[in-house]
């Protein structure tokens, strides 16, 4: 009985490593969203113009063009504040899932439309962009799982 408990303990992440991992993921996600939000606000007309070319969302282009960077900033704030970082991770994963659905729709309808992405992403094809987003969704989910309070030992 005791040896099983020991084995379980050895498999379990050390709490401080967990904390660092979750915190590092939060920082990476914050960087990505704030970088992206700043560009979308500074170059807002370009972003809105790009969205207006997408047939399925063109009528809501102005609202979406403001909502996306505002939501990115809000999620970043939640990620930065230690007490709310878990909510931030949920928000991050949620938004990334929405962006991924957008990319999937682009792939399905074979549209060559702007995504106004940043960093290395702007050089990626839609397919590569999809994998990039999926990887970020995965790390956000891992961080949520790791930040779950310890249940029964």
């Amino acid at each position, binding site marked *: 009985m005791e040896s099983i408990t020991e084995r379980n303990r050895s498999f379990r992440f050390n709490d401080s490593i967990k*904390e*660092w991992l979750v*915190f590092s993921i*939060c*920082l990476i996600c*914050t*960087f*990505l*969203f*704030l*970088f*992206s939000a*700043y*560009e979308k606000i*500074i*170059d807002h007309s*370009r972003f809105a113009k*790009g969205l207006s070319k997408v047939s399925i969302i063109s009528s809501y282009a102005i609202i979406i063009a403001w909502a996306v960077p505002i939501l990115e900033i809000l999620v*970043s704030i939640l*990620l*930065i*504040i*230690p*007490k709310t970082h878990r909510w931030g991770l949920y928000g991050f994963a949620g938004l990334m899932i929405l962006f991924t659905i957008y990319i999937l729709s682009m792939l399905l309808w074979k*549209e*060559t*439309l*702007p*995504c*106004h*992405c*940043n960093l290395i992403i*702007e*050089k990626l*094809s*839609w397919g590569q962009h999809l994998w990039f987003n999926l990887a970020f969704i995965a790390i956000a989910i891992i961080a949520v799982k790791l930040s779950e309070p310890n249940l029964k030992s």
Partner: protein
Amino acid sequence: MNNLKKLALGLSVGAMAIGFSAFKSTVNANAKFAQQKFYNTTGTQSTDPKDYEYRPDGACESLPAAACSAVWNYSGTLSEGDHPNGSRVSSNDEIGTWNGN
């Protein structure tokens, strides 16, 4: 690490993200080129400058194969969506499909 240190580090990363983004925007805005790649918005090779646009973040995807981009002469400061105002440099368009960026 206590919450205050985490908050401070988080704010630093946030400031860094905005700083990098601002730097990148400034570099793009100040782009001045004598020759520049313009993206073909029609997919068919043309000699009409109106069929080509300056897109700082553009790229050609390998498929489907079409007329994607060409180098043109340009004078002045470029901003996104500008057409070339000089002569065409490339004899043929780069093949691929403009990614829309």
